C-alpha cells in the first residue's frame, strides 16, 4: 500500500463491518425488546428489580463480584419426558401401548407405581403421537420439557439464560469466569438473605471449603450497649462477648440483590416445564408449548 488513505480505507472497512455486526445489529435485534409473557401465564417477564435489590446491584458492580462469578446458565439440549400419570380403565390396552413405546416397562408393576416417566424423546412434537396412544385408550399422560447439561445438573438453573433475562440490568454483569459458582439463580437456590450475610462476612462459616474472600468491610463490629440487636449476625464463633457484627446497608442491599437473582420463567426461546404446574386442572403440561390434550 503506497498511500496512507488506503490504510485508512482498509481500517474503516474492517472496523465499520464489525461495528455494524456486534454493536448496531444487536441493538436493532435486542435493544428495544419488550417484556415477554412467561409461557403459559400472563406474567410479564422480566420485571425490573425492586429498590433495595437495585442498590445491591451497585454494590455487586462496585466490589467487582463479576470477576469471579458468572450469571449465565448454559444447557446442551432439552429433552421431553413422557409421564404416564394414570392408567384409566383399560389396563390391558395400556400395557399393549407401553410394549410399543418402551417394552422394558410393559409390566403390571409399572402400572402400580404411577406416575412414571415412560419414555424420553427429543422434543414435544415427537412426544405428541406417543402420548396420543395413551390418551386414545383413556389413560392420563403428560409431557415435561427438561433442559440438560452440566449447569442444570449442578442446580445452577432450570433452563439456559437468554438475552431477555438481562433486559433491566444496569450494568449487565454476565461474567465470563467461574472461580466462584454461577449466580444466575442464586436467589432460587439460596433464598435466605441472612445466609448470604453470614456467607459474605465469613464464607467458611457456612461453606467449610469455600475459597471466597470474606467481605468484612461490609460489616460493622460494635459493642453491645443495651441489648443485642436482632439484626446482628448469628455466627458460631464470632464475635467475642459484648460485641456484635452488624451488616451495613451495603451488605443488606447486596444480600437483597443476591436473593433477587433468579431467571426461572419459562420463555418461548428457553422452554422448560416447572416441576410444580400452577394449574393442575388439565393434564396438559403447565408451561410449554402444549401438546394436544
Amino acid at each position, binding site marked *: 500500500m503506497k498511500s496512507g488513505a488506503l490504510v485508512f480505507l482498509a481500517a474503516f472497512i*474492517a472496523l465499520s463491518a464489525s461495528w455494524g455486526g456486534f454493536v448496531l445489529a*444487536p441493538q436493532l435485534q435486542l435493544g428495544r425488546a419488550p417484556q415477554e409473557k412467561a409461557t403459559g401465564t400472563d406474567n410479564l417477564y422480566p420485571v425490573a428489580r425492586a429498590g433495595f435489590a437495585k442498590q445491591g446491584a451497585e454494590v455487586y458492580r*462496585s*466490589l467487582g463480584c463479576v470477576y469471579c462469578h458468572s450469571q449465565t446458565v448454559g444447557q446442551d439440549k432439552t429433552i421431553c419426558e413422557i409421564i404416564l400419570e394414570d392408567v384409566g380403565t383399560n389396563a390391558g390396552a395400556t400395557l399393549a401401548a407401553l410394549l410399543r413405546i418402551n417394552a422394558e416397562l410393559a409390566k403390571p408393576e409399572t402400572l402400580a407405581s404411577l406416575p412414571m416417566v415412560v419414555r424420553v424423546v427429543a422434543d414435544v412434537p415427537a412426544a405428541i403421537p406417543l402420548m396420543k396412544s395413551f390418551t386414545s385408550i383413556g389413560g392420563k399422560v403428560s409431557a415435561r420439557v427438561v433442559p440438560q447439561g452440566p449447569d442444570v445438573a*449442578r442446580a445452577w438453573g432450570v433452563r439456559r439464560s437468554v*438475552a431477555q433475562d438481562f433486559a433491566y440490568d444496569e*450494568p449487565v454483569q454476565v461474567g465470563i*469466569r467461574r472461580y466462584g459458582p454461577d449466580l444466575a439463580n442464586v436467589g432460587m437456590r439460596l433464598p435466605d438473605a441472612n445466609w448470604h450475610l453470614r456467607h459474605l462476612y465469613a464464607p467458611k462459616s457456612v461453606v467449610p471449603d469455600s475459597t471466597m474472600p470474606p467481605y*468484612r468491610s461490609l460489616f460493622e463490629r460494635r459493642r453491645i450497649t443495651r441489648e443485642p440487636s436482632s439484626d446482628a449476625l448469628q455466627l458460631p464463633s464470632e464475635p467475642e462477648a459484648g460485641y456484635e457484627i452488624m451488616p451495613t446497608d451495603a451488605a443488606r442491599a447486596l444480600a437483597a440483590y443476591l436473593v433477587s437473582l433468579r431467571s426461572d420463567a419459562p420463555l418461548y426461546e428457553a422452554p422448560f416445564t416447572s416441576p410444580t404446574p400452577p394449574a393442575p386442572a388439565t393434564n396438559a403440561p403447565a408451561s410449554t408449548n402444549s401438546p394436544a390434550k
Partner: protein
Amino acid sequence: MLFGGAAFWLALSSVFGLIASLKFHAPAMFANCACLSYGRTYPAWSNLLVYGFCIPAGLGVGLWLLARLGRVEVAKPWLIAVGAKLWHIGVLVGLIAILAGETTGHEWLEMPRYASVILFLAFLLMALWTFVTYSRRTEESLYPSQWFVLAALFWFPWIFSTAIMLLQFFPVRGVVQASTAWWFAGNLLNVWLGLAGLAATLYLLPKLVEKPLQSYYLALFAFWTLVLFGTWTGIPAHVPLPAWMPTLSGMAALLFIIPSLAIVTILLATVRGAKVPCMGGPLCFTKFGVWSFAFSGILLALTACPQINRVTDFTWFGHGQNVLRIYGFFAMTMFAAVYHILPRVVGLPICPNRIRAHFWLAMIGTVLFALPLVVAGVLQGLKLIDPTVSFVATVKAVMMPFRLSTLGEALLLVGNLLFLFNVVGVIVSCHRAICTKVYVDATAQLESAGVKS
C-alpha cells in the same frame, strides 16, 4: 515522558496483580479493606496494564516510528507531551476511581466516564499531532510499520468512543451492553495491541538483524487479515446472546490464526541466516514477542472449537491467553522497542547486562504466569463440565498451577521494576547531562566574566 510513565504504571500494575493473585492463596488477606478486594485489585491490574502501560508505550513507539520512517521532526512535541501528561492524569483518576469502587462493571473498560473522557481527549491530542508528524514526512513511500501505526491511531478513538458512549454516557439496554463491551475488548486486545505491537516488530526485526524485511507482501497480508478477522473476535461462546454472534466471533477467532502464522513466517524468513547473536538484547524480546503473538493466536483459535470451548469457557484459560497476548507479545515487543529507541533519543547507552537480566526475568515470568493458567483452565474446565464433581473441587483442582502462576507474576514484578529502573535511569542521566552542560556553560561565562572584571 510516555515511556517513563508507562514503566511506572506497569510496575504498579504488577503490584496490584500480585495482590489479586495472592487472594486465591489467602482469601482472608485485606478482608477489612474493600479497596484491596480481588474485585478491585484485578481491574486495577488490567487497566493499569492496558491503559497505563500498553497504550502510551504503543503510542510513543508509533510516534517515533512515524518520525523516523518519514524522516521528519516530531510536530509540536510539547503538545504531545501535554497529551501524555493528560493521559497519565486520566489513568491516575481512573485508578483511584476503580479502587474506590466506581468501576463501570464492564471488563477492560472499568474506568468511569470522567476518567474515560480525559483519556479520550489525551489520546486525540497525541494521535492528532502524531498524524501531523506523519503528514509532514519527507520520505513519500510507506513502510509496513507505518500502516500498522496509522491504523492503530484510527482504531482506538473509534472503539473507545463507541464503548464510552454506549456503555457509560447513554447505556444501551440489556445484553447489548455485554456485546458492545466484548466487541471493544476484542478490538482492544486483539487488534489494537496487534497493530501497535506488530508495527514495532516489523521495524525492529530487519533493523536488528540488518537484513531486509521478508517480505513486504506478507506484511500486507498480515495487516489485512489482522484487521479483517481480529475485529470480529471477543465474544465468548457460552453467553446469553443470539447464537449467531458467538458463532461469528468464533469463526473470526479461528481465522485469527492466519495473521498469527503470517507474522511467524515473516520472523523466520527475515532472521534466517542472520549472524546476529540474540544475547538477551532487543532481538530476543522481539522474537519472544512474535512467538507469543502466534501462540496466543492459536489458543484463541482453539477456543473457537465447540468441543474445546465447552471446557475452557468460564475458566482461567482465557486469562492465560490474555496474559500471553499482553505480556508475552505486546509488553515484550515494547521493551525491545524502548531499549532500541531510548538510547538513540537521549544519546546515552543502557547497560546491556541490565537489559539481559530484564529479558530473562520477563521471559521466565511471562511463561510461568501464562502457561500454568492455560493448564489450570483446562483442568478446571474438565471438572466444571462434570456435574458429579463438587464445585469447590473444581476450584481446588487448579491450586498447584496457580501457585506457579503467582510465582511468575512475582518474577514479572521484579522484571518490571528493573525496566522502570533502566528507563528512569537513562532519562535521569540524560537530564543530568543536560544540567551539567548548562552548569558548565553558565560557569564558563561567569569565569570569563570574572577574568574580565
